[in-house]
């Protein structure tokens, strides 16, 4: 962080800190976050794990929350949001602030959703999690989800974060806290959308704490508008035998960066992390994921499928760290990138850091073009080169998309992906 930028963050904070809701984050915590930022600085492209990120929008961003900057924004309506999914309670946030008119709570056994978390987790000291400090300092609301024992079917919650304000008016700070008691189960859908033409700046922070034997299925869709900047930090802790299925589909924003930090803190915990990212035109889709195996016998499966077209850059930097006590760790990484344009860039980077002997770690990483034999096969059946290429791109994402277990959500994502692959009429007909 340049001294000028650092000073601007501090100045902006000082100017509005009185107006920030102390109930969401206490003023002490906000102050600590700002101090930590001042000490550690914001990331720069020179930093090892930020080299693929487009950090330039930070230089122009206003860090104060949009919600306080523009209290009188025109309220969006239900029609601006994606269709509802049956059985899911919906909580919508506009520019980081809860929007009751767009939400519909639902009585579900064991489920509590509040705007204020009962207790905040300790801040991650991971250098890659620094952008979450901005969220901590400036947040205006929280979606705090707590699930106690769920005897029947899992609790089902959908969170929608809609960004309307432009980056020149401030930042939108989505903030989520998920706590699962032992054996609890939750299916969580988290969507990020923004005004289609608006250049919003979104900085979201998600904290997940999964109790022993609890199961969380978490779908994250980043569908921000074509001019938006979207940065995100997710920190999760898994207790013994906890299971976390995290599936992210990133198609939106001009510049996006997602940081995921999962700690396998209990023996026998299981993580399935699947990410699909599509970049076209000048888009930057950067993903960093660190999975730390701290306790024994935990399992991780990482799947990444990214497609870069036009002049886009799509990156996935997946690191698995196996600590000394994590004997019996089983981790698999399958990272694949597809170059679909002569000026596009794909960076897939598996990293392994192992401090114990008793592990099974496998990884495969490839970046390449469409397979010529597959392409010719489709052409030889009469498909046009454009349709054939689109079909193959589609097929490439299948390893991630096929893991979506909610049929309506899967259809929605398939249409979204088909739409992203430009001129999708011929593909949609196939869906």
């Amino acid at each position: 962080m340049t001294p000028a930028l650092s000073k601007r963050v501090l100045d902006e904070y000082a100017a509005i800190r009185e107006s920030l809701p102390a109930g969401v984050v206490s003023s002490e915590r906000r102050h600590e976050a700002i101090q930590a930022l001042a000490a550690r600085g914001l990331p720069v492209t020179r930093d090892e794990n930020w080299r693929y990120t487009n950090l330039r929008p930070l230089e122009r961003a206003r860090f104060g929350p949009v919600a306080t900057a523009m209290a009188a924004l025109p309220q969006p309506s239900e029609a601006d949001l994606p269709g509802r999914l049956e059985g899911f309670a919906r909580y919508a946030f506009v520019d980081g602030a809860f929007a009751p008119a767009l939400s519909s709570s639902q009585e579900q056994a064991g489920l509590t959703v509040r705007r204020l978390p009962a207790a905040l987790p300790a801040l991650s000291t991971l250098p890659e999690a620094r952008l979450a400090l901005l969220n901590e300092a400036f947040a205006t609301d929280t979606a705090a989800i707590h699930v106690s024992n769920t005897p029947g079917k899992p609790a089902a919650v959908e969170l929608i974060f809609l960004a309307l304000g432009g980056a020149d008016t401030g930042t939108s700070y989505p903030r989520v806290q998920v706590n699962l008691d032992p054996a609890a189960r939750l299916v969580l859908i988290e969507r990020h959308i923004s005004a289609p033409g608006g250049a919003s700046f979104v900085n979201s922070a998600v904290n997940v704490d999964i109790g022993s034997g609890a199961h969380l299925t978490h779908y994250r869709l980043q569908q921000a508008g074509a001019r938006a900047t979207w940065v995100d930090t997710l920190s999760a802790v898994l207790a013994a035998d906890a299971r976390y299925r995290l599936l992210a589909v990133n198609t939106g924003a001009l510049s996006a960066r997602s940081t995921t930090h999962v700690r396998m803190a209990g023996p026998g915990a299981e993580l399935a992390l699947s990410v699909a990212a599509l970049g076209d035109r000048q888009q930057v889709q950067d993903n960093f994921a660190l999975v730390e195996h701290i306790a024994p016998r935990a399992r991780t499966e990482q799947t990444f499928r990214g497609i870069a077209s036009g002049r886009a850059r799509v990156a996935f930097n997946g690191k698995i760290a196996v600590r000394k006590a994590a004997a019996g760790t089983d981790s698999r990484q399958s990272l694949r990138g597809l170059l679909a344009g002569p000026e596009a860039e794909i960076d897939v980077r598996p990293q392994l850091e192992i401090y114990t002997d008793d592990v099974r770690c496998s990884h495969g990483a490839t970046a390449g073009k469409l397979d010529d034999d597959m392409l010719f096969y489709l052409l030889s059946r009469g498909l046009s080169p454009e349709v054939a290429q689109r079909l193959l791109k589609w097929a490439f994402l299948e390893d991630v998309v096929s893991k979506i277990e909610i049929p309506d959500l899967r259809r929605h994502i398939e249409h979204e992906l088909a739409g992203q692959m430009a001129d999708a009429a011929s593909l949609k007909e196939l869906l």
Partner: protein
Amino acid sequence: MLKIDDLHVTVDGKEILKGLTLSVPTGEVHAVMGPNGSGKSTLANVLAGRPGYEITAGSVTFQGRDLLALAPEERAREGVFLGFQYPVEIPGVNNVYLLKAAVNAARKHRGLDEVDAFEFLALVKDKMRLMRMEESMLSRGVNEGFSGGEKKRNEVLQMLVLEPRLAILDETDSGLDIDALKVVAHGVNTLRSPERSLVLVTHYQRLLDHIVPDHVHVLVKGRIARSGDKSLALELERRGYDWVSGEAA
């Protein structure tokens, strides 16, 4: 239907076809036999338009048109079908999607409306029964996890659904056990008609017991060394390719 005249083709600078001339009239079934490396697969691939083959001389006309001037997808829409020797697996592209997209591409080319989804599915299932294929294969990825025999059956299934004017089957018999060979041959035979031509590219005579050709050609070192009726295949079986190769040398 198909006229190949003095065709010369090189691959990576090496000449594989060295003046091949062959004519397949409408309604006939021709077998092209030959030893390994004689240029059989090159011929099949050149007709379908696979990239990587340089045509240095000669011509190929299909129904009076210059076939070599057409892109692979245009050839397919005009009614040329290649049954691949090694059909590629395409995980994630659903079999039935591909069939439908292929049929619709050809229909659009002819100015016809798209097929009705239900009628189409019924037709495909009907052809699948003919090919003794499990219906569950429809919803799988193209050739994904198929055995060698299943892949070949799937090629013939595609051919039956697409109803090409000219089908070139490249070693469709290789890797098949005798039961599968009969199924495949039966499928191919149902497509024989006075309006359609078939070119069977094969190494062995046994396929021709089940799909009886009108003419047999022996390809040696990039040229047709000998042509005859079906008895030529039997003679080849008896005397081996050395017999023709020796004559050609």
